[in-house]
């Protein structure tokens, strides 16, 4: 693979939208075979960071390096090694599940698109609904189909924005084992999520964003939820104090 890579480096990346700072000087590194959890409250900049990593958004300053490549110089070849499951699912509701996947398989120039699509439909548990229009699917079914769309071309870097949204218990756990399988195959998985229960035990590394800044994450062991809360509290002493007092009062 011409544009393959085994390391993702985010170096001092900032992104501003007019006067609003969505990301400020974010740096992180992620190697092949790693699942990185991107945590943080709403509006922390997680989706912006995913958009930058997917090459859809250019950083205002800083660099993202995919192995030895960068998004501008590698262009289409590099995009073929990235998969993105966005908060919006990037599916055509008028088309059937099979047509959606076949469209993306052909867009990506995959060989044997039909066989790949059949496999993807089986993975999504939608083989029996393959010829139904996506507009009739539940959110969970769409989510599963969208994940297969993102994985269809076997990306090295998989970016997931709230991947557990709409999934029932069984589908959520199936996704967790799928992601573990991808990690074992050497993929770099970056997942932005609020579902700390499902993420517990899945994530190899955690990055916590708040107001566009990356917070230091304690390496100490302990439940993910607790580490997340402690990190946020430690980062906002003025805001944290009243809420801690409130908790004690309660």
């Amino acid at each position, binding site marked *: 693979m011409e544009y393959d890579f085994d390391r993702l480096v985010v170096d001092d990346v900032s992104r501003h939208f007019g006067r609003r700072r969505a990301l400020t000087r974010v740096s992180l590194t992620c190697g092949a075979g790693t699942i990185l959890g991107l945590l943080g409250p709403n509006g922390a900049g997680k989706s912006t960071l995913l*958009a930058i990593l*997917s*090459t*859809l*958004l*250019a950083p205002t300053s800083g660099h993202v390096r995919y192995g030895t490549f960068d998004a501008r110089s590698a262009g*289409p*070849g*590099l*995009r*073929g090694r*990235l998969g*993105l499951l*966005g908060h*919006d*699912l*990037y*599916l*055509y*509701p*008028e*088309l059937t599940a099979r*047509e959606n996947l076949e*469209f*993306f398989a*052909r*867009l*990506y*120039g995959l060989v044997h698109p039909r066989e790949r699509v059949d496999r993807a439909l089986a993975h999504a548990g939608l083989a029996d609904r393959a010829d139904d*229009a996506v507009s009739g699917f539940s959110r969970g079914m769409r989510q599963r189909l969208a994940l297969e*769309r993102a994985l269809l*071309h076997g990306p090295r870097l998989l970016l997931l924005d709230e991947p557990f949204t709409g999934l029932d218990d069984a589908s959520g756990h199936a996704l967790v084992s799928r992601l573990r399988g991808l990690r074992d195959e050497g993929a770099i998985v970056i997942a932005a999520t609020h579902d700390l229960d499902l993420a517990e035990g899945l994530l190899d590394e955690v990055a916590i964003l708040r107001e566009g800044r990356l917070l230091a994450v304690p390496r100490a062991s302990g439940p993910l939820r607790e580490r997340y809360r402690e990190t946020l509290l430690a980062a906002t002493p003025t805001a944290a104090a009243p809420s801690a007092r409130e908790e004690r009062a309660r």
Partner: protein
Amino acid sequence: MKQFLRVAWVVMRKDLTVEMRSREIVYTTVFFAASCVLVFAFALVREGRPLEDASAGILWIAIAFAGTLALGRTFERERHTETLRALMLAPSDRPAIYLGKLLGVLVLMAIVEAVLVPMIGLLFHAPVFARPLWLAALLAAGTLGFASVGTLFAAMLVRARSRDVLLPVLLYPITIPVIIAGVRGTAAIFQATPDEPMARFWTALLVFFDVVFVTLSLWTFEPLMTE
């Protein structure tokens, strides 16, 4: 080049499949274009006698209005499902996506024109079948010029809040040369004695516009679509 054309074909085929399922754009644009021609017919045809030389202008006005509607709706669909981002993520040259969208719009506009031309002939007594090849050439060249700029602008404005207002405001001033050339060329072949040299001149001018507009659009699509 083969990959470029393959991606354009895949995108066009997808757009037409989506349209075949919903028939939303075809129905609305054909209805809108037909209504537009009927309004002009009520206003400009007196006792069965249409205003002289009005038919060519009315044909192109209806094409421009219906085309704007089709362009807006095509990209509204991609915005609604955010699928434009998925297209931008594809490992292909982004101008191929533009070309695919343009081809889809051209097919839709051709369907509208297939309804409009006989209507103009019927309501305004225009000799639409007198020089069918010239008329087809003028319509093809004019539609390509209009749609090439329109597709670029519609893609560019897809995230703008007032895109429905901005699209015609930006599109019409730029495509005025195309509309004028289309009207003058069509008027030349709608005359009692068709003026072929004049039609040839305006068709050549339209082809020139097409080359300029398509080249510029292919060239600027990628930078304009990068957020």
